[in-house]
């Protein structure tokens, strides 16, 4: 005979404000099989847990239902409490009367009734619960880091320094990401490359890090501790082991007028190129789309002059398969390009540029060697208008969020411009200044007060060209919305930070969730900011939301710490909520008829064929078997099975049926 204990939590007043908890406790006590029913203000507190433990011991409970919040919050708490008393933790269930009831309904009898119904179903279920034992799985202590920007670099180094192997995959020919494109960094104005390149070199030299540059993730299967990744190493068209990085080929390549990605389209590069001098690895790649040989079948100049005969025109993409235990996603962000701001002439006028392009103009390694010269005619601009919030915080444009980095980098841009062009007149149009961060507000003040940057609070309506000048129309909303017109030589738009173009596709490959703007979603916005909802996959940097360098680095180290914690054990314990195939004594052996529909339905390749043989070795039948290491407990096979031979432990047919019946028969049972 079942002896179930029901424990109803007020959750402060999160539950008790709309649900009559006393009435729920009284109703629960009347359910057949319930031996104990109490309510308490904070069931998750120590005294609350003690109530549960004492009741188990004193009343000899065979099952526990805690009616409180979502199992995502406190199921582990109460299962542990049960385990301490010797009750199998899987005999404890949560009845979610907070998210599913008190939070979503008004106070009233109907709400209390619903809470009672939820408790009733869980009592019915727990009566059918079976004691289960956790599953042990081994951990592959190798981390896969996707993205070689500053976040990916930091995560890789931290994990590698903790003594674990790292495989770093970067899509571009070199690691470094956006940070390598920046001129100086706020709020200290130290040179971005000077602080970044030592880290890049460290990655290249670290014995624990394997770098796959110019490579992309093809697919990821498996689960925490046991992932299988397939990585596509795109053909560089050269043998990396032979190439010495001498650079002869890049100097002699006759196709030289290709807008360079690293210089944000402002500089030109050859068809065989290294993105920038400090690239890691310092090995060129042939851009097959532009290379004369791939287009016309003639040239092969680089092949002729290469001193080590490293060029391989017929090289194919290579797929590498690796086994990893954890994944850190650090794929970064992009900025809004293209025909998004027709009113600002972006993409139409060469002298309306974006923030990354200004970084390249200000950078010593940039197309102007660090002199601020405008793209159209190379003239030093006398007046520059910087526009913050170009696209950001603009619901009409579909981007409601703040891009977070623009206030600071715009102040830096205006400052750098003043430092380089002493007589220059910089204007900044802004909505609000968001300078929350250590030494950030002081930095912006310095731009305004010491460097004479003219800050105008207001938005611009239009940029158009007249007599060789860019006319910027806007309003100064602090001076009575006075319309303003500024004749500028250069306009810099702080265009919105957006997700990488391939973010959605990557998220689907990884089975991690993403938001409406295709930034990856963290498991909890406050308490689990570096984890995803998929165990073993962590986030670092701006792929989650726009972030500046210090924040990206901090999150990367956080993700690395999570990976190191995971790798600190050689075995993981998993919940046994997985599928099992029916097994019976002879002569039936199993109700499975061996159709293997389940095998084709399983998204995790967890179903194997098992041959049942008699003592004489004779094959009796072939049936399905679930690999407990691979099964994720999704239940797809259960739905497919024609003979109801597969069940999910903890969510069996019998349990779910009991829950439904408890709802259908509530009147009769309570009567």
């Amino acid at each position, binding site marked *: 005979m079942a002896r179930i204990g029901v424990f109803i939590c007020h959750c402060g007043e999160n539950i008790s404000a709309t649900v009559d908890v006393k009435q729920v406790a009284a109703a629960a006590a009347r359910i057949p099989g319930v031996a104990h029913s109490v309510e308490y203000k904070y069931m998750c507190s120590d005294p609350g847990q003690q109530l549960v433990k004492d009741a188990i011991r004193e009343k000899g409970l065979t099952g526990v239902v805690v009616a409180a919040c979502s199992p995502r919050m406190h199921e582990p708490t109460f299962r542990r409490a049960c385990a301490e008393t010797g009750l199998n933790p899987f005999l404890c269930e949560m009845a979610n009367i907070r998210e599913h009831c008190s939070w979503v309904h008004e106070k009233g009898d109907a709400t209390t009734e619903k809470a009672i119904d939820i408790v009733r179903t869980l009592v019915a279920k727990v009566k059918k619960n079976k004691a289960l034992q956790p599953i042990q799985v081994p951990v592959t202590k190798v981390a896969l880091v996707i993205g070689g920007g500053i976040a990916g670099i930091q995560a890789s180094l931290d994990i590698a320094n903790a003594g674990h192997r790292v495989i770093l995959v970067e899509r571009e020919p070199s690691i470094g990401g956006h940070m390598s494109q920046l001129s100086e960094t706020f709020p200290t104005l130290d040179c971005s490359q000077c602080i970044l390149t030592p880290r890049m070199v460290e990655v290249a030299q670290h014995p624990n890090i394997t770098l796959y540059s110019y490579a992309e993730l093809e697919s990821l299967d498996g689960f925490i501790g046991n992932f299988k990744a397939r990585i596509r190493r795109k053909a560089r068209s050269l043998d990396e082991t032979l190439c010495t990085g001498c650079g002869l080929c890049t100097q002699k390549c006759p196709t030289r007028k290709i807008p360079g990605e690293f210089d944000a389209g402002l500089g030109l590069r050859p068809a065989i190129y290294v993105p920038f001098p400090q690239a890691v690895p310092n090995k060129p790649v042939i851009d097959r789309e532009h290379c004369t040989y791939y287009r016309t079948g003639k040239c092969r100049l680089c092949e002729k002059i290469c001193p080590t005969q490293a060029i391989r025109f017929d090289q194919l993409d290579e797929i590498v398969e690796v086994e990893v235990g954890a994944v850190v996603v650090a794929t970064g962000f992009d900025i809004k390009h293209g025909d998004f*701001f*027709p*009113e600002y002439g972006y993409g*139409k006028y060469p002298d309306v540029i974006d923030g990354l392009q200004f970084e390249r103009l200000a950078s010593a390694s940039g197309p102007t060697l660090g002199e601020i010269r405008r793209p159209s005619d190379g003239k030093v601009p006398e007046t520059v208008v910087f526009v913050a919030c170009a696209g950001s915080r603009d619901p*009409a444009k579909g981007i409601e969020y703040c891009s977070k980095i623009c206030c600071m980098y715009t102040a830096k841009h205006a400052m750098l411009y003043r430092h380089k062009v002493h007589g220059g007149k910089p204007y900044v149009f802004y909505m609000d200044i968001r300078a929350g961060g250590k030494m950030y507000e002081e930095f912006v003040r310095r731009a305004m007060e010491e460097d004479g940057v003219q800050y105008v609070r207001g938005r611009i309506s*239009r940029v*158009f*060209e*007249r007599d060789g000048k860019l*006319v910027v129309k806007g309003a100064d909303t602090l001076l009575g919305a006075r319309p303003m017109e500024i004749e500028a030589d250069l306009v810099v738009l702080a265009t919105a930070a957006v997700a990488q173009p391939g973010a959605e596709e990557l998220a689907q490959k990884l089975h991690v969730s993403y938001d409406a703007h295709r930034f990856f979603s963290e498991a909890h916005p406050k308490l689990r900011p570096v984890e995803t909802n998929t165990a073993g996959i962590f986030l670092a940097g701006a792929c989650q939301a726009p972030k500046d360098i210090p924040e990206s680095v901090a999150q990367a180290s956080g993700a690395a710490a999570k990976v190191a914690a995971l790798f600190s054990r050689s075995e993981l314990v998993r919940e046994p909520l997985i599928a099992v195939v029916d097994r019976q004594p002879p002569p039936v052996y199993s109700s499975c008829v061996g159709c293997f529909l389940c095998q084709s339905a399983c998204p995790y390749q967890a179903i194997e064929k098992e041959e049942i043989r008699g003592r004489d070795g004779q094959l009796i039948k072939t049936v399905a078997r679930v690999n407990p290491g691979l099964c994720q407990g999704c239940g797809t096979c259960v739905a497919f099975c024609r003979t109801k031979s597969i069940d999910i432990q903890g969510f069996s047919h019998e349990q779910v049926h009991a829950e439904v019946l408890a709802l259908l028969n509530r009147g009769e049972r309570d009567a």
Partner: protein
Amino acid sequence: MKTGFYPGCSMKGSAREYSESLLAVARELNRELPEVPDWNCCGATAAHNLDPDLALALPARILAAAEKDGMDEVLVPCAACYSRLKVTRHELLEDEQLRQRISGLVEADYRGSTEVLNILEWLSRVPELEKHVKKPFQRKVACYYGCLLVRPAGIVKFDRPEDPQTMDLLMRKLGAEPIDWAFKTECCGAGFSVSRTDLVAKLSGHILEDAVSRGAEAVIVACPMCHLNLDMRRPNIEKRAGKKISIPVIYITQALGLAMGLPAKKLGLQRHKVAVKISAANAAAKDI
């Protein structure tokens, strides 16, 4: 598909030529445009400044009449009328209680089946408009949209609010070369035409000066109010600018009519204050 026509006050008065040219073009395209029966004033600028209910009731009555007459859509060539009807339709369909109250006020029920069209939408739907062009309009033109055709963007859901293209594409089909300019959606001064003519002279002046400086030979409009400010207020504009500005301002329907080879008189070109010394290319030699 039955398309009705709501002229509003200006098409019967100061902008007769807009109506004349529209109907002439429609006849040529074999499209019937029956007027909405027993139509009334849309409320224009006055109603929504004075009484929010009246501002919705007047267009609601028009829409209800069109719906009752079985019109699937109503063509509203005046941009101000278009805005009032479009906004009213939006507000009533967003709020059922409001719809019932306003329907009660005008004693006519508008259920939302009749759509509201502006002139550019209507023209864009003509299949193979190019085939009707007999005398290509080989001129540089400044396509001027004004404020109300594309705004508020969330309600009209028509073209890009900051840099619309529909009229440019239409004029290209007629053989014209639309210029790239900065004032296509800037304010002409609108309803201040009477009370603050000085403001209109300034704002409309900027529009015309930019069009002229970029080599436009005509400004193309789709709004009687814009036309009135750019054309009828030309003396004020010229006085303020201190120079003669002779660029003509013509309705998109007139431009289409000329390209179709219709006589200038039928299109009401003689009614403009600023002489239209322009026509489709073949007739360019002689003034109209």
